[in-house]
């Protein structure tokens, strides 16, 4: 007697399942995302949206040149994005490399702002599994509440879905109490169909969040890709009963863009995902644009960058 509610139980089954998901029409999905982008969000709605977007930011620095000094400054900004305005909310999290986790943890301790760390040989993921797991454990030990891992795109594109699946399961285990975000690197997957498949693969394997990008390749988060991922988490919860979060990362630089993402959530999955627990923006320069737009709403005139801290 076969079980209809269990996971696919072999590599071949997994491939059949993923390839059997409904297709995504590129022209249709891009048109839908563009149409939602024409929603006009004004006045009170805009003010609420800006505050929500700020609270959803994972303030990020992932550079080879990161130092404790840089990370301390970023973490201070995360706690107090606008020192001139105490009513401005804090961001959701700070996102750094594992080596910098302890530095960030010391600044953020007890604040409610979470600490996310990338891991698993970010950004390429081209390393043996034991190296990736050690990377993960190291980050958790360093104080990370959340781990942002990368999938093996090479394995995915070669059709070795079982390997991608097993790696996610192993990393999830290594996370212990930490939440796991799985980065699909949608800019390398080539098609929307693959984005849907990768989303389902990550969710079946135990992801708490699915994330678009590392921000290190030319094509990062886009509205249509995020739309496909929102549809996936919606369908996953409907069929499997578990809610999973979504994080677009990279390339979101303006308030206008960020608000389009909120509209996407609102009209695809609804209120349940309109919170930092279930949606994050992986961004750095977006924060200052949000602050400038926030200020404009209260002062009535356009803001300038001199009035906001760099970090």
């Amino acid at each position, binding site marked *: 007697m076969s079980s209809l509610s269990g996971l696919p139980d072999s590599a071949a089954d997994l491939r059949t399942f993923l390839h059997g998901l409904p297709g*995504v*029409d590129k022209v*249709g999905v891009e048109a839908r995302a563009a149409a939602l982008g*024409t929603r*006009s*969000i004004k*006045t009170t*709605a805009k003010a609420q949206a800006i505050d929500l977007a700020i609270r959803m930011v994972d303030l990020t620095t992932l550079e080879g040149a990161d130092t404790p000094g840089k990370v301390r400054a970023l973490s201070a900004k995360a706690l107090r994005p606008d020192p001139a305005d105490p009513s401005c909310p804090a961001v959701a999290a700070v996102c750094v490399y594992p080596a910098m986790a302890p530095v960030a943890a010391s600044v953020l301790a007890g604040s409610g702002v979470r600490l996310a760390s990338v891991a698993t040989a970010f950004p390429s993921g081209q390393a043996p599994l034991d190296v990736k797991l050690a990377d993960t454990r190291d980050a958790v030990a360093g104080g990370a509440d959340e781990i942002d891992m990368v999938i093996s795109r090479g394995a995915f594109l070669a059709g070795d879905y079982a390997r991608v699946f097993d790696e996610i399961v192993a990393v999830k285990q290594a996370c212990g109490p930490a939440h796991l975000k799985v980065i699909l690197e949608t800019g390398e997957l080539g098609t929307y169909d693959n984005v849907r498949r990768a989303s389902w693969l990550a969710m079946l394997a135990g992801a708490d969040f699915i994330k678009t990008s590392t921000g290190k390749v030319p094509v990062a988060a886009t509205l249509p890709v995020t739309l496909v991922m929102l549809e996936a988490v919606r369908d996953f919860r409907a069929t499997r009963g578990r809610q999973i979060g979504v994080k677009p990362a990279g390339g979101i630089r303006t308030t206008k863009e960020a608000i389009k993402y909120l*509209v996407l959530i*609102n009209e695809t999955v609804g209120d349940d995902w309109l919170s930092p627990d279930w949606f994050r923006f992986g961004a750095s320069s977006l924060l200052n644009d949000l602050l400038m737009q926030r200020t404009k709403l209260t002062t009535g005139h356009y803001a300038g960058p001199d009035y906001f801290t760099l970090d």
Partner: protein
Amino acid sequence: MFEYAPAPESRSIVDIASSYGLFIDGSFDEGKSSFKTVNPASEEVLAEVALAGPEDVDRAVAAARRAFRAWSALPGAERAKYLFRIARIIQERSRELAVLESLDNGKPIKESRDVDLPLVAAHFFYYAGWADKLGYAGFGADPRPLGVAGQVIPWNFPLLMLAWKIAPALATGNTVVLKPAETTPLSALFFADVCRQADLPPGVVNILTGAGDTGRYLVEHPDVNKVAFTGSTEVGRQIARSVAGTGKRLTLELGGKAANIVFDDAPIDQAVEGIVNGIFFNQGHVCCAGSRLLVQESIAEPLLASLKRRMATLRVGDPLDKNTDIGAINSAAQLARITELSEIGTAEGAERWSPPCELPDRGFWFAPTIFTGVTQAHRIAREEIFGPVLSVLTFRTPDEAIEKANNTPYGLSAGIWSEKGSLILAVADRLRAGVVWANTFNKFDPTSPFGGYKESGYGREGGRHGLEAYVA
């Protein structure tokens, strides 16, 4: 809860006069009587327009006839440049004309701004480009115009239907007398102003506002060489009868009851968008609307669940609010018809569903509605409702879908949703419909011929094919 807050488009960009006359021979003349046009979203009177009588039709046709001599003798390159000017002016005045259209018709500003007006301008640009190269169109080395065209257009896409009629007529060297619909006269009157701005020679375009009788006088006028009509099949039949034996050329673009066919391998989320767009775009006031959803039985249940979930995000309200998805029904008469047919749907045993919807007090409104459990034997599966009402039927195999889709006197359009190319092309081959949309719906382009089979009319508008109706 993410409420969007009102986002009204300003009305101040358009200056509507309190009254308008008839545009004959390059200027506005007062008519003997008049009638009012209202904003269907508020029932507020927008303006008083003239009611053209038989003498006015005579004068207009005579003016068109006089102007025909010089207009048809102009080199094509010169006619082209007039049409390019008109296209440019429409582009420059797009926002103004879009606001006007939404006020007079009731359609959301989002649609008049993003769909209607761009297509209007594009249509004039496209046909402008044929005027100086007609010898290449496949109708002989030197296709000649017919003379004076009498054109009667409907209220659902007022300015766009005007563009579909006037652009090819002028490009080929004809002159026109056009009658806009009774409930939507204003954009045609503003178009007259565009013609003046473009320095179009007087008499080449004449605009006669009026009602059903005005259209009849025009169509039956002995000095009209060509009749073009878009509207109901009922009136189309009358026109065809009255034109019989007169030698007048005739094209008709009439009603439809299009099948939107969703197969079990369709890209589901996009199919849902296509269904919604197919029947709720322009409040369902679309001749080619996908008003029958034919869904493969094996996926009917999940598809309907997705459809209902999607319909719950549709925003019905003030057409001038930029976030409105569904505007007002065009008139009290049309609202009555939609209401009546919906009641018939329930009476015949179909199950009716609408998402919760707050409708404004004043104006003409109808919530987006679906009927499930519909079969071909239901009136709501056969008769054109011309409103935001979808009838849902099921099928088992592609053959059955095709049979059901074709089982109608209409034949204007159809939709096919599937990820399989060979299925799409085979089904498209067998559908008796003039426009087949695969994995999309309600897509229009000036280069793409549009028109129906069977009682949806004859002749094509758009593309190279659209020239045929206007040349000898």
